């Protein structure tokens, strides 16, 4: 019967596509809910395995933003020799100010330094005893925040080669050490993340494999009645992505909980160090999104691998 109400083929296809996927999704969800304890255990393990690297990434990220605040306190102090002329100092200052690694330069003449010292120390009488000003003319060079430790090193070296310099003090030892610790931490988190992601793939893959084994008859029957590989794969991809999704949500809950526990002491730390309160929660939400999306992707990938392994076997094996 052909009538005007007959829907187009494309419409039919789209509808049947939706139906197929919705049915598959609901079936997979139903299967997870049928064994609640096992499912809960599995997704919790996945959640922890996802939360751990995500949390560490967050911590490292926060440390990095905090130490960015510290970088501005790094300055290079340049002490000139006694007999240097003001013109020479001005020339060097002008030259350094043009350097892209340099943010700004504070100039302190020897007279100014002495005046400040007199005021700060209150030892004016003692200073009067000296027949000449013992303090050198000084430049405090504040590098830009973007300048890397390596760039700063080369800046210090080039300054040391200038004429009339008595001493260059680059008080960056602890800041640089902190930086390298953070870099090390960063690498460590990277390696740990890779391992834990691999663990998640194994967990989901194994779970899916067990699921395949428990539904062997269904698979065989479906194959006999003409199911395509994609048809057989689909419910497992849905289960896999559901494991990833729920695991990701659990990871987010863990992250948000630990964050709310940590944020107050962190803020105290930040304000006690008089750093900019950069510990905002915006990276937290980004990481949460990443964990959920990543969880789903990992679920799809690992179940795909599990089914592919099995289907390879299926092709060469015979029906039960």
């Amino acid at each position, binding site marked *: 019967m052909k009538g005007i109400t007959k829907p187009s083929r494309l419409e039919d296809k789209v509808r049947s596509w939706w*139906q197929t996927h919705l049915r598959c999704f609901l079936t997979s969800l139903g299967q997870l809910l049928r064994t609640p304890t096992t499912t809960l255990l599995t997704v919790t393990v996945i959640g922890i395995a996802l939360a751990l690297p995500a949390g560490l990434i967050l911590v490292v990220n926060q440390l990095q933003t905090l130490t960015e605040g510290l970088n501005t306190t790094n300055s290079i102090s340049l002490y000139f020799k006694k007999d240097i002329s003001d013109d020479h100092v001005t020339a060097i200052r002008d030259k350094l100010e043009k350097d892209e690694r340099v943010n700004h330069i504070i100039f302190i003449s020897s007279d100014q330094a002495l005046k400040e010292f007199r005021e700060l120390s209150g030892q004016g009488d003692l200073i009067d005893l000296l027949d000449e000003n013992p303090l050198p003319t000084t430049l405090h060079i504040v590098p830009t925040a973007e300048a890397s430790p390596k760039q700063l090193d080369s800046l210090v070296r080039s300054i040391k080669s200038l004429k009339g310099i008595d001493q260059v003090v680059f008080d960056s030892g602890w800041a640089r050490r902190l930086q390298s610790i953070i870099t090390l931490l960063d690498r460590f988190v990277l390696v740990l993340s890779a391992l834990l992601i691999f663990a998640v793939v194994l967990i989901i893959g194994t779970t899916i494999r067990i699921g395949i084994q428990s539904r062997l008859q269904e698979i065989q029957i479906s194959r*006999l009645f*003409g199911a395509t590989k994609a048809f057989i794969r689909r419910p497992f991809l849905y289960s896999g992505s559901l494991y990833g999704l729920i695991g990701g949500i659990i990871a987010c809950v863990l992250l948000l909980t630990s964050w709310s526990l940590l944020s107050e002491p962190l803020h105290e730390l930040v304000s006690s160090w008089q750093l900019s309160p950069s510990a905002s929660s915006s990276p937290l939400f980004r990481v949460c999104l990443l964990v959920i999306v990543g969880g789903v992707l990992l679920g799809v990938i690992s179940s795909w691998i599990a089914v592919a392994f099995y289907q390879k076997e299926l092709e060469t094996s015979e029906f039960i």
Partner: protein
Amino acid sequence: MIRFSEVTKLYPGQGEALKSLSLFIPAEQMVFVTGHSGAGKSTLLRLIALMETHTRGQILIDGINIQKIPEKHRFYLRRQIGFIFQDHRLLNDRTVFDNVALPLVIAGFDHREIPRRVHAALDKVGLLNKENKFPVTLSSGEQQRVGIARAVVNRPPILLADEPTGNLDPELSIEIMKLFEEFNRIGVTVVIATHEVELARSTGHRIIALKDGRLMTPDDASLQEHTL
């Protein structure tokens, strides 16, 4: 149309289940494959259903050499074949309705079309009132009929049944045979493997008798094949 040309199926370690078997089953025919246990009846059906691959020879279904079909296109031929197992092989975690609907779901039927077809198939086997039951709550005869409904719901041109009456009493067996005859009447090729020679003979349909993987008597239809 199903044609076997000198088909041999070797099970490693078990010997040859079929030995250079040649036979021809024209389209829309109903035939019985008989023989003692171990004669190779199941093997014959499983080869047609693409559940296994033969070792030597050639199998043509509707003129297509099934060995030449790559694995990824085999699903299409499988949809043309309905298979009925002796042990039903129903999915016990699904209702009768869902069991019967499986081939339709696989073939991607519209969800409004599925109930109509499932009901028609269940009606045919007289189980319309059991659609929401689970297989384990049904009798063996009823489970067998659910298996039949599942095999025919997609209206395949070929129906294969492996010992479909193996567990049933004679009355039920005759009923099931009548059901197959009905399908055959509307043009379905039906191949039934059974060790119950008497039952097969009583229907008056063609019989292919197997013994140790060979034809017991030279089959007239397969002789005819060579003259075609």
